Structures are given as structure tokens and as C-alpha cells.
């Protein structure tokens, strides 16, 4: 046992722990400022100023919001299942954070005599892992709604669960077409294949569109925020929640948004590849560390664009009716995804046959 412990690469473990801490911290920080950005974007789209009182341009607004949530009274409903009631928001947050483990945030950094990869786990089933974790996200909604012991919460939770499950199908099918082209499930590999600047969105525009729509549905964002429809269900599954438990649910949504933007940028938009620049020759000329920093910045810029897109859509498109949502999912997106898959497969076979029938 001792020899096993001694032989373990402690440097690797410490390196990964530090990376995990940094990524969780960054995700939470980004989520914090996403709430601010959301309010600002909403305001600008509605011809308003948005929060501008806390600090210059209101940049301390998220701190004020957090302080407010922390200082609120924590109420657990009398007839609720106490354990599940606490578990719900925790699970929502956990699943939101877990996805970030397989996202490659950048290339390699040379520090302390080590070659540090900016990806927590380069598992060869990265995309399957993401799907597994994302489908666990249903439990956060479902358990929260169930444990509240409230009809509206339960209705909202059921709506949310069926919506997430329905859209996961189309999401998976849209990715199958892409995976036929990549031939790998590893996120790192997929980014490496796009390093020459030919992003997969150019080959799979329809697949990207379907994935985007499904990502909206998975994140419970407008136009698919039926599980928290204020006007119909009194805020849905987190109606009974208060204080930081509510904060966790709201926060999990923003973390989800950040991570799904990261996944979309990784799979379809080249991940940390710097556009219009040959990364490997840049790295040789200017050093690997500078390259890695620029790659991370580039990746975050891509994520930022997607996050803005999420918000932009939220303040443009009204909520779908439930039957419209189901029709769009089952009767439009899934057939389109299957069609996309068939056409892609046909073209791949044709290319392997040197464009002869």
C-alpha cells in the first residue's frame, strides 16, 4: 500500500487539484457576472440602462445580489421531504459543475518543469460523459419539484423533465453525424482536428443549429423555460425555495449556460484554437505559455459570444406553448437530425469510395 502511494505521481494529483479549483472558481465567477450581463443585456435590448448604482456601471451588483440571497430567511416547507429538498439545489449545482471536467480549456503550459494540460480529464469518451452528466441535470429539477410538496412545483418539474429528455434525443442524434466525421469521442482530439481553422460548424451547420436549440432546452432557457414559467406556474420547481438554495438553482442555470457554451465552442467552433492563426507555428515562435494564454483567452471570447447569444435569444423570443415545444422537439428536430445523419453518412461513404457510386 505504501509503495503504491509513494509511486503515485503526486505532482499530477496536485496539478489536477489546482486545475479543478481554478476551473470551479472561474465557472462560479463567470456565472456571477453572467447574472450581471443578463440584466445589462436585457436592459439594453429594452432601451434601459440596467443596474448602474452599485459601483461604476453597477459592476458590484452581483455581490449585492449574493449578499441579499445569503441574508434571506431560509424556509423549508413543513410537509416537504427535507432531505430531498436540500439535495435538489445541490444536485443541480453539482451536475452543472461536473461537465467542465472534460472541456479542454487550452493547450499546454510549461511550468515547474512540467507539461501541464489545461484539461482536467482527457477521457476518450468525453462527449458520452457530458451526455451522462447533462441527463443527470434532470434530477435537480425533478427532485426540487417533488420535494417541495407543491402542485405547481411538481407540474413544472414534470414539464421540465419531459422537455429535457425529449431534447436530449435530438441533441444526441445531431452529434452522431458529427462523431461520424471526427471518429473520436475525446474532446481534446476533436479540438486538435479543428486546429487548421476548418471548424466543424462548416461541415455540420444543420447539426450545429439542432445542437444549439437543444442546448437552450437543456439549460431551461427561454424560449424553453417552461419549467419555471412565472406566469403559469408561479416560478415552477423553485417556487418553495428561498435564500441561497434558490440562489443555487439560479446559479446552476448560469453555470449550465457557461458550460454548454464551452461545449458548443469546443465541438463546433474549434475550442481553444485561435482563428486565422496557425497555432503550432505561433507556439514555436513565441513560446508555448504565451500560446496557451492566448488560446484560453480565445476560448473565453468564443464562450462569451455564445453566452451573449443565449441572452439575446432570451430577450427576443417568447416562451413556447407546451404542445409547440413537443412538436418542435419530436416532429421537427429529431427528423432533421436523422436526415442530417443520413446525408452525412452517405457523403462519408462516398468520399471513402473516391466519389464513385
Amino acid at each position, binding site marked *: 500500500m505504501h509503495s503504491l502511494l509513494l509511486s503515485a505521481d503526486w505532482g499530477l494529483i496536485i496539478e489536477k487539484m489546482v486545475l479543478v479549483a481554478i476551473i470551479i472558481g472561474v465557472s462560479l465567477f463567470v456565472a456571477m457576472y453572467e447574472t450581471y450581463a443578463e440584466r445589462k*443585456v436585457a436592459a*439594453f*435590448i*429594452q*432601451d*434601459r*440602462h440596467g443596474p*448602474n448604482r452599485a459601483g461604476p456601471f453597477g459592476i458590484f451588483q452581483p455581490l449585492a445580489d449574493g449578499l441579499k440571497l445569503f441574508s434571506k430567511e431560509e424556509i423549508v416547507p413543513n410537509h416537504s421531504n427535507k432531505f430531498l429538498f436540500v439535495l435538489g439545489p445541490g444536485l443541480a449545482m453539482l451536475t452543472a459543475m461536473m461537465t467542465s471536467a472534460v472541456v479542454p480549456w487550452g493547450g499546454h503550459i510549461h511550468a515547474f518543469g512540467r507539461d501541464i494540460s489545461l484539461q482536467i480529464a482527457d477521457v476518450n469518451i468525453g462527449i458520452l460523459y457530458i451526455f451522462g452528466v447533462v441527463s443527470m441535470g434532470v434530477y435537480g429539477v425533478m427532485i426540487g419539484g417533488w420535494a417541495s410538496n407543491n402542485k405547481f412545483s411538481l407540474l413544472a418539474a414534470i414539464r421540465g423533465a419531459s422537455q429535457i429528455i425529449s431534447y436530449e434525443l435530438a441533441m444526441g442524434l445531431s452529434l452522431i453525424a458529427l462523431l461520424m466525421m471526427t471518429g473520436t469521442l475525446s474532446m481534446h482530439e476533436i479540438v486538435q482536428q479543428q486546429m487548421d481553422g476548418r471548424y466543424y460548424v462548416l461541415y455540420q451547420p444543420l447539426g450545429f*443549429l439542432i445542437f444549439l436549440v437543444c442546448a437552450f432546452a437543456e439549460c431551461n432557457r427561454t424560449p424553453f423555460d417552461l419549467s419555471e414559467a412565472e406566469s403559469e406556474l408561479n416560478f415552477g420547481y423553485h417556487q418553495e425555495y428561498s435564500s441561497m438554495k434558490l440562489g443555487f438553482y439560479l446559479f446552476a442555470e448560469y453555470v449550465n449556460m457557461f458550460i454548454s457554451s464551452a461545449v458548443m465552442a469546443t465541438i463546433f467552433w474549434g475550442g481553444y484554437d485561435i482563428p486565422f492563426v496557425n497555432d503550432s507555428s505561433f507556439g514555436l515562435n513565441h513560446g508555448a505559455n504565451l500560446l496557451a494564454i492566448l488560446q484560453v483567452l480565445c476560448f473565453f471570447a468564443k464562450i462569451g459570444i455564445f453566452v451573449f447569444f443565449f441572452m*439575446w*435569444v432570451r*430577450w*427576443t*423570443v417568447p416562451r413556447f406553448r407546451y404542445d409547440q415545444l413537443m*412538436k*418542435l422537439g419530436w*416532429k*421537427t428536430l429529431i427528423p432533421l437530425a436523422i436526415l442530417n445523419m443520413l446525408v452525412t453518412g452517405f457523403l462519408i461513404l462516398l468520399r471513402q469510395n473516391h466519389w464513385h457510386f
Partner: protein
Amino acid sequence: MQALTSRAKVVGRKPMTFLEKLYIPVIAKAMGITFGHIFKKKPTVSYPEQRRTFSPVFRGVQVLNRDEEGRERCTACGLCAVACPAEAITMEAAERLPGEEDLYKEEKYAARYEINMLRCIFCGLCEEACPKDAVYLSETLVPSNFNRESFVYGKKELLIPHPLKEPEAYARARGERGS
């Protein structure tokens, strides 16, 4: 059936085409509209820093006026209280004693003069009713407060500053208008 107006529109209930079912073209159009709004001028007035100018006929909180020598003009005739549709004005009259000629213009004056600002509707009828030009509506708003009693304004709050003793405060209170 004959249409009731010439502007009646027949609403088509055609089933949606496949393109419409995708919602993509309409959504793209709508997103163009919202994106355009980001760069539009915002109509917001950032209130404490920026204030909108009031219209010249704005009717704000009442002021009890003094004449040029600083004597109170009010003679407590009660016409303003009678004219007031909201019954916001109460007053008590008192007789001017010898030696108080520099305080009150007429032989009778208002010892107590109260306006309940929660009742007042700022119609300006008191100003119109006053034969002595003693009460008029200024350009200021009634400031907010936490207790109801503080909204009953007495002479302390209503009386304009003395024109000879505090000329600057008087000029400020008078504003652009006056008796």
C-alpha cells in the same frame, strides 16, 4: 356577412409550412430587431443626477407668501379652506396686537395654518381663491417621509423665508414665479 368597418381583416388559418414550423426565419428577423435596440438612445432620466424641467404651469407644494417688507400676507379669511375640494386646509385666526405691525400685514392673521399634503390634490384652487395673494403653489414636490403626521404642513414648513432677513432663501423659494 357584411363587414362592420372597411379595416376588417380576414385572419388566415392556413397550416404552417415546414419553414414556418422551424421558426428560424422569424426568429432571425426578431433578433435583428432586438439587436438594433441595443444601440438606440435610452429615454431614461437618471433621476437624482438629472432632473426634468417642470412645465411652466406645474403646481407643487403651497407657499405662504410675505409682502416686500416681510410681513405675512395671510389674513385668515378662510376662503382657501372653503375653496379646497379635498378639504386639506385648516386654519385658526388671531388678532394682531399692537407692536406686531411688522409681522402681519392685516389686523387679523393666521395663528395656525395647516395643509395636509396627503389630502391635497394640488389643484391650485386655494391660490385662485386667495384675495390677498397669500398662498400660491410653488415648483417643488412634497418630499417623501415615513410617518403620516409629518405630511401635515404647518406655518413652519409653508411660510416663505423673510425677503429682507434671508434674501437668498427667499429668492430660491420664490423661484421663477411669484405673486
